């Protein structure tokens, strides 16, 4: 291979990171405030929840599926966790007689809700062979409805301080939410690259027949994939709720689209079998920096949407070229 060829290949491989750095560089010129630690931490805080969501959704996308239910899982988790940790001094509690519970109870209850809905998604996809788009569209609507039923569509405010601490506290200068985002990313990276489960995810997305004939238990793995996505969504839901200090049954509406967008910009291929955690993080940061930068530059939030939409499509066009089979 010629040296320009390998340079090209290298550039291809790291396009997304180059784009990220170029964007960050340009913004630091355009706005003196952009590179301040406080601003960067704000970007990270804002994007942590969505980042965790995107990582979960990416597992589904790599397996040649999709998970539309994650936004609703955020909402459901939000109200499930919140109603278990309302302060007794608040008179209009969802469960008036509830004693003060330790903080892990609402956290685990929320995560259980996420894993449960994710597992149902996985089981539907694995055993009934309905397309992931439909299965998760159904559960998205169901989960959204459950959240509304539980709360009668009212917010669930007055959460106990030890719960709010999850979303608002920090370790030194670094907020807990960012630390949790980093931890989830590390776990996801190890899962994808260093475990049999990860190899199975890539194989199922890359060629499901090959996976089957190699003796991989495709159904079981699909359930794990969607359960993991549900778990990520519920972690994001808890973080966002704790930060907002209130459970809201519409909290995660449309979050699934942001998550899918981030994973896609980060090079996760909807044709299956392709995607990396660093790529997804770059995708999330590109969207985050874009939001932040356009805001700092005083550009209309409506125009921001237009720009975001264009970037998503362009990212996929690039990606398809990059991943075209070479002969």
């Amino acid at each position, binding site marked *: 291979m010629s040296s320009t060829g390998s340079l090209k290949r290298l550039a291809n491989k790291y396009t997304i990171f180059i784009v990220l750095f170029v964007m960050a560089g340009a913004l630091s010129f355009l706005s003196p405030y952009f590179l301040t630690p406080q601003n960067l931490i704000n970007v990270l805080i804002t994007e942590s929840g969505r980042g965790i969501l995107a990582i979960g959704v990416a597992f589904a996308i790599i397996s040649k599926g999709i998970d539309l239910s994650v936004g609703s899982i955020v909402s459901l988790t939000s109200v499930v966790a919140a109603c278990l940790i309302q302060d007794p001094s608040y008179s209009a509690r969802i469960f008036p007689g509830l004693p003060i519970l330790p903080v892990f109870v609402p956290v685990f209850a929320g995560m259980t809700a996420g894993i449960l809905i994710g597992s149902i998604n996985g089981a539907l996809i694995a055993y009934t062979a309905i397309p992931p788009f439909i299965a998760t569209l159904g559960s998205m609507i169901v989960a959204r409805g459950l959240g509304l039923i539980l709360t009668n569509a009212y917010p669930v405010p007055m959460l106990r301080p030890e719960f709010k601490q999850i979303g608002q506290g920090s370790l030194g200068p670094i907020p807990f939410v960012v630390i949790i985002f980093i931890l989830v990313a590390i776990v996801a990276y*190890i899962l994808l690259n*260093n*475990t*049999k*489960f*990860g*190899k*199975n995810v*890539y*194989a199922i997305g*890359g*060629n499901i*027949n*090959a*996976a*089957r*004939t*190699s*003796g*991989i238990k495709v159904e079981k793995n699909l359930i794990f994939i969607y359960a993991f996505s549900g778990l990520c969504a519920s972690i994001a839901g808890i973080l966002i709720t704790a930060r907002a200090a209130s459970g809201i049954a519409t909290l995660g509406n449309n979050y699934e689209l942001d998550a899918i967008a981030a994973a896609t910009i980060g090079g996760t291929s909807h044709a299956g*079998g*392709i995607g990396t955690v660093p790529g997804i993080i770059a995708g999330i940061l590109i969207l985050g920096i874009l939001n932040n930068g356009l805001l700092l530059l005083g550009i209309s939030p409506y125009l921001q949407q237009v720009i975001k939409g264009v970037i998503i499509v362009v990212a996929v066009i690039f990606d398809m070229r990059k*991943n075209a*089979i*070479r*002969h």
Partner: protein
Amino acid sequence: MEELILEMSKIVRTFPGVKALNSVDFHLRKGTVHALMGENGAGKSTLMKCLVGINPPDSGEILFKSKKVTIPNPLTALRLGIAMIYQELNPVADRSVMENIWLGREPTFGKLGFFVNHRKMYEQTRELLADLALDLNPRQKVKELSIAKMQMIEIAKAVSFNADIVVMDEPTSALTPNEVDHLFSMIRKLKQRGVSIIYISHKMDEIFRIADEVTVLRDGNNVVTKPVAEMNIDSLISAMVGRNLTELFPKIECPIGDVRLEVQNLEVTGLLHDISFDLRRGEILGVSGLVGAGRTELMEALFGLRRKSSGRILLDGKPVHIDSPVDAIKAGMGFLTEDRRLTGIVPVLSVKINTVLAHLDSYSGALGFLQLRRMTKDCLEYKDRLSIKTPSIEALIQNLSGGNQQKVLVARWLLNNPDILILDEPTRGIDVGAKAEIHSIITKLASEGKSIIMVSSELPEIIGMSDRVMVVCQGRITAILDRKDLDQETIMRYATSINNHAA
């Protein structure tokens, strides 16, 4: 005679409405190659799917190493030591060679079996590949490899399972002659290790080169099982089709007219160089060459699917511009593409729609409504003319056999009565009976005065059918041979000539 490693007896398998296997017997001897033959739909693949646990049999017995076994899924088959290499190769394209070989049983750290040990996987792969004398990088992505190399990976995978039986389903359908030689030497190597091979193929010459025994199935029944030495091509063909084919390539010598198409100094940057040839009325021009020599690319350039960097095309002496398939169809050309499934049929549409697909314009009447009645009439006409076997023209094309799908595609290109028909691998992957029918259709078209360019990897087909043969090698024409000069050695010499010069 060698001991039996496998005995399948009275295997029955029904699918809704079809008895695919009707009490079939099959055996395999240790360290031998047993060919399994029959037309498409004869039950070969079904029988093998019973063996490897994809479609377990309804009844019947499988004895493996003299022990009765039941094989409910592919994993059980693999653990027993029965591996299958599928016709549609099965790699995970975006993953590495080593990940494909160890898919589903990656070496792990410790007893937990959760974390993959990449270093061990790499070492094991290197040993395996060295053992089989395969020069491949374990970390290379599979999609960057040729089909032949992918097949070698599948074979390596089978060896890594310590397979006693390897089933190969049409392994040579996409290989060049050199690659076939390499495959065969690999098969001999496996035999020496005591591995037994079940070899499914349509290609007669391969059976006589590599197989020790042959079993022929027809319509889900046993027809014959014999040592290959006791069979010949004629007896094999008649066993497969149940009738005698008078001639495999029923070429009719017919008068060849004047020049219709002339290609002058055609170039496609990086792919084709200085291509000049002509094509006459009533002529079948065979195009031969190794896979990757540029045959298909040349056809695509002619048909406007590839941008030509220079060169002229003349039709009846007048220059024409063909920059898109629309131009080509207007100029009276038709193109039967190489890959039926990829660029030919639309599986979920009816035979009728598949037939008229390239000519919907000509069926648009007033206000742009389609003239459905005329569509049906034309479709029925071609169904009869090409004897397409389908329950109805409304049936989905995916339910037809490969041969009949191919006939539908031929009908598609005959519909607007083209003068020039380009056929790229017109008989790949279809059974002997349908092949003969396609050949006689091609010959008949030529005798009606159509000009035909036929690309084929099968030398007997090229030699049997062509009036002249154009040999392509590394994007150049290395020879244009007359019918009287055709033989396999000559064609192969020209197909590899540039390589030899370079060496």
